[in-house]
């Protein structure tokens, strides 16, 4: 993404014009554009004109439209962003208040206007326009009968294809059915890799499975590449890395990305860092539970006490349509930053680590020093609630 123009006033209001270059930029735009923002982008709209005689003719007109956003919809598979809204600037074809859905397109400018550009929003812009080298990796996690072909970019994990086949089990005296369908299973995965992963552009392709499946798959891939004389795959041979994981479900990516073989190759990428942070949080939870807290209330209290060393926030929280709630999280981030002692990590909610964090309510913190009973009043409330409920019943 390129920043074309940034015009933010002192009171925080203003507009930013951006130029998206790659599919991932749609994800950034999705994190940036919220309900009630204004958005100006190019659009094609069907215009019906009525002549004086009453006959109508319709034509498609290309124009720039400005809308007030009602709904933002992101399709991660296709990398498309659809924004519903109402026209806020009139032109000769459309009236104010008419509905329109803008589909943001690559290589066309769009302008976002907000009443309040907070630090998190500006952070998203900064991050999106960071020209640092992008490391994309492909990953196939599989177990017998199930394979997930994923593409992991700096900010997104996209499940490109899920392969779920029924494989007959070995039976006494007959293993041919089993072996045949395993062969077919590998074949399907191989074809899916060719179709869905841009092998030439990827930094590494991870094959992860429990047991020996990944190795067998790797063997199959190269055997097949030699057989079909697929130069791309053969040339990418060093990129294929087999990793151990415990299951073939997508969430095994957590395990895969923290394995030493992967960390060695991808240490400085954002998602490797995110995975590592989540991992250390869970470890702390088990070993030193008073230093690891999750949930908005608990973390808020820890921040009040100035105890937070690392704040982990999922960016799904900042997409909230409720301004109050969003402000609350922005304040948390800003306070931790202001305290000087703390570090803030905003995790992408469509990475597996972000999904894990969302499971904890989207916000978690590792503390500098142990704190106890941050959730205490919560229980009191719960007890009160229970009492109320009982009272109600009694009444």
């Amino acid at each position: 993404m390129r920043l074309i123009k940034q015009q933010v006033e002192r009171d925080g209001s203003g507009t930013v014009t951006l130029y998206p270059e790659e599919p991932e930029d749609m994800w950034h735009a999705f994190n940036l554009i919220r309900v009630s923002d204004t958005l100006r982008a190019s659009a094609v709209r069907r215009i019906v004109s009525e002549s004086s005689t009453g006959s109508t003719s319709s034509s498609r007109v290309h124009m720039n439209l400005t809308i007030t956003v009602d709904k933002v919809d992101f399709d991660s598979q296709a990398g498309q962003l659809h924004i519903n809204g109402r026209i806020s600037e009139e032109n000769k074809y459309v009236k104010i208040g008419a509905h329109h859905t803008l589909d943001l397109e690559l290589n066309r400018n769009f302008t976002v206007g907000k009443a309040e550009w907070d630090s998190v929003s500006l952070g998203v812009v900064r991050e999106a326009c960071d020209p640092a080298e992008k490391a994309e990796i492909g990953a196939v996690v599989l177990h017998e009968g199930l394979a997930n072909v994923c593409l992991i970019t700096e900010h997104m994990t996209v499940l490109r294809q899920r392969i779920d086949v029924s494989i007959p089990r070995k039976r006494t005296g007959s293993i041919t059915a089993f072996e045949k369908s395993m062969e077919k299973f590998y074949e399907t995965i191989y074809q899916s890799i060719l179709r869905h992963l841009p092998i030439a552009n990827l930094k590494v392709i991870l094959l992860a499975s429990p047991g020996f499946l990944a190795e067998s798959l790797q063997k199959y891939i190269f055997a097949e590449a030699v057989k079909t004389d697929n130069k791309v795959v053969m040339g990418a041979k060093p990129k294929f890395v087999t990793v151990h994981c415990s299951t073939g479900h997508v969430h095994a990516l957590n395990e895969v990305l923290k394995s030493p073989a992967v960390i060695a190759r991808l240490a400085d990428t954002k998602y490797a860092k995110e995975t590592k942070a989540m991992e250390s949080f869970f470890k702390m939870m088990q070993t030193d539970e008073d230093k690891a807290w999750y949930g908005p209330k608990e973390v808020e209290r820890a921040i009040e006490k100035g105890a937070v060393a690392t704040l982990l926030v999922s960016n799904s929280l900042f997409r909230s349509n409720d301004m109050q709630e969003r402000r609350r999280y922005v304040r948390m981030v800003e306070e931790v930053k202001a305290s000087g002692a703390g570090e803030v990590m905003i995790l992408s909610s469509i990475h597996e680590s972000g999904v894990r964090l969302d499971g904890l309510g989207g916000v978690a913190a590792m503390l500098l020093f142990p704190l106890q009973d941050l959730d205490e009043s919560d229980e009191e409330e719960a007890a009160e609630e229970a009492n109320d409920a009982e009272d109600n019943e009694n009444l």
Partner: protein
Amino acid sequence: MSRHKIVRTMNLADELDDFDGEDDYYEEDEGMSPADKARMANSLRQVREVIGDDIPTLTDGKIEETLWYYYFDVERTITYLLNQVGASEKKKQKKAAVPEPKAREYFTTISSISPEHTSPGFWDDTPFGSIPPGRRGELLPPPSPIGFRMSGLLGGSGIQPAKTSKLAALAKARNKAKAEKASDTTSSGTSGTAVSLLDRLSKKKPDIPPATRETPASAAPTVPNISKLEQLVEKTTPDLPKNEPVHNTPSIPGPEPDTVLKAAPSGFAKSMFGKRIDETVEFKQEVTDTELIYFSIAPTQKAAMKAKQAFDVPSPDDVVIAAQSQSKGISKVSKGEKPSSSAITSIQKGVEALKVADTSEKPVPAKIPRNKLDVVAEYEKSKSKRKENANLVVIGHVDAGKSTLMGRLLYDSGVVDERTIQKYKQEAEKIGKSSFALAWVLDQTGEERARGVTIDIAVNAFETERGRFTILDAPGHRDFIPNMIAGAAQADFAVLVIDSSPGEFEAGFNVRGQTKEHALLVRSMGVQRIIIAVNKLDLMHWDQERFDEIKQQMSQFLTTAGFQAKNVSFIPCSGLTGDNIVRKPADGLVPWYSGPTLVEELETAKPVIKAIEKPLRMTIADVYRGGVTNPVTISGRIEIGNVQVGDLLVVVPGDEKATVKGIEVDNQAAEWAVAGNNVQLHLAGIEMEYLKIGDVVCRADSPLMPLKEFEAKILAFESLTPMMIDIHRGRLNASGRITKLVATLDKGNGSVTKKKPRYIGPGSLAVVNIAVTGAPLPLEKGSKIVLRADGLTVAAGVVE
């Protein structure tokens, strides 16, 4: 071995396709190593020196084949070849009359393989020798080389040269019969069956002096006998393509009783089979019955008497035939009778049957008549007659010797024959893993053998005098615990194998070891009885101290895991040597142990009582093509309820319906099955794509509602937070998320100790909410689930 498979293996085309044992044999031949080739050339030369080049039928290829078969034993090869030449020359004259090349090919294949198995005394040292004749049929799966043992071409050992002449006569007689047979035969499938029947029949002929057999008068009775056997088969399998002329062939010799039999076959058959059906379970006895009836109407000549004598004892063939007659074909014949007989027994039952009938009147995808049996009553009736089948899962740390122990058990109890073991030994030695030979009985895929690790559960059955057992050999490697869970979910009790060698027990017993994890898993799946097989004690010189040390540590752990002391027993044994598994250890080897052997201990374990009257629930453990006539077959263990032929089933999740076309319980065709049975259900009206391993089949009138989100009461093994998990239930393996920790509970009385806990510590009891990531799962209240994350079993529990 099911009769479907028997029929299938008779079919030549299928045989080439599926026939494992023989396939191996040929593959072996092709995959000869250079060293073997050198040996081959050398041995061939030796044989040629002895035999000379003057026998035209003895090609180099033939000699090589024989040599390979005996694995370069020159002496045995020569003996066999010489005998073979003698026999085949006589055969050749007859063979010219055989118009069907397929059948002939089949025969030559057999005769080239057969001799070793028939050498006298060969089986004396195996447990086969001591099995009562009536039960042999079950232990003789025709596709395995044992089947060929009956083909009657003797030789090989050459210990009794006198036999050759008898054999020659026998071969002649058989060829004659075959020639008549083959001239009538049109369809290869039928011819395969018939020929093999003939073939087996001939096995018992050596009792009759060759002289009598040669005369045309006495040859006649055998032919009608055969024809009647065929009639029997035909009557019982009306569905199969049959060839009419078969009836006419025997009528040429024209003994009167034959026409009598032809005159009223249906009534006779009805009475005969009606009786049989009533006693489906105990077929040993009825075999004798049918046989008596059958042979009493045989020609009243001298030969008939002889034949009767010869056939007095039910032979394995008869058992097989009887079993065939129980297949679907016969069940159709009997269908009219069965409900009526049950209706007579009690009116109430009839009413119940009607009730069942009401529910099945929905549109059925494929019309399969339903018998409207009262399965529960049928089950009660048959209870006393049959041995209960118990499933046992074999668990333990990786490389504890689970597969080897079970391989040994199957070998010593006669399920696996000597030849197979020898073959495995040779192959295992070739890749330098000779100690794995026994494990190869269960580890059958290439990967498992190459790596020496069990990957998926292997299912095998064996029978002792007091019980039937189905072994589920679970993988020990921690990556394959999902497969182990699938096995444990089907088990009544568990055999935990422990490696007693130094350091190995400890390795399995520490935190990341599977000894503990497996024990906890089977316990949480509801297994109460556990037998600890302290294995590899031969390496420890049967040291009592070591045994006691392991016993003490394990007892302590198992008590905390929730096993009652009376349900835990310890058996010292060695899988590799076979001591104290089926047979007692040699005298003085283990002076300090006088308890039961492993098998004796197994016999004391009783299968768990199941709820058979509830609606059907069965998790699909496997989906496959069950053969030509059964394109869609599922297998598994019925968890709850019962099923019968004609039932309309629904597969959950999803709404696909199917009708039960046939049922096999423990590889025996049956009309119904109840909870606890290991069944194969042949389905009609559904495509294989709609059946997934891990799905649950239910009766269409009482389906399961799949769940997307549910609450579960769990026992945590590791600390839990809201997190991603794998949900396992039997073969089902799905991804999900703990969304909310509802409360932790007191272990004693189940009362809530903390609401909305922040995390759940290891060992605590809790209630959590779980959301399924993908499609809804076939779970219901009371389903036992196991939760795993990052390769560890984090919790086990029950859906609330």
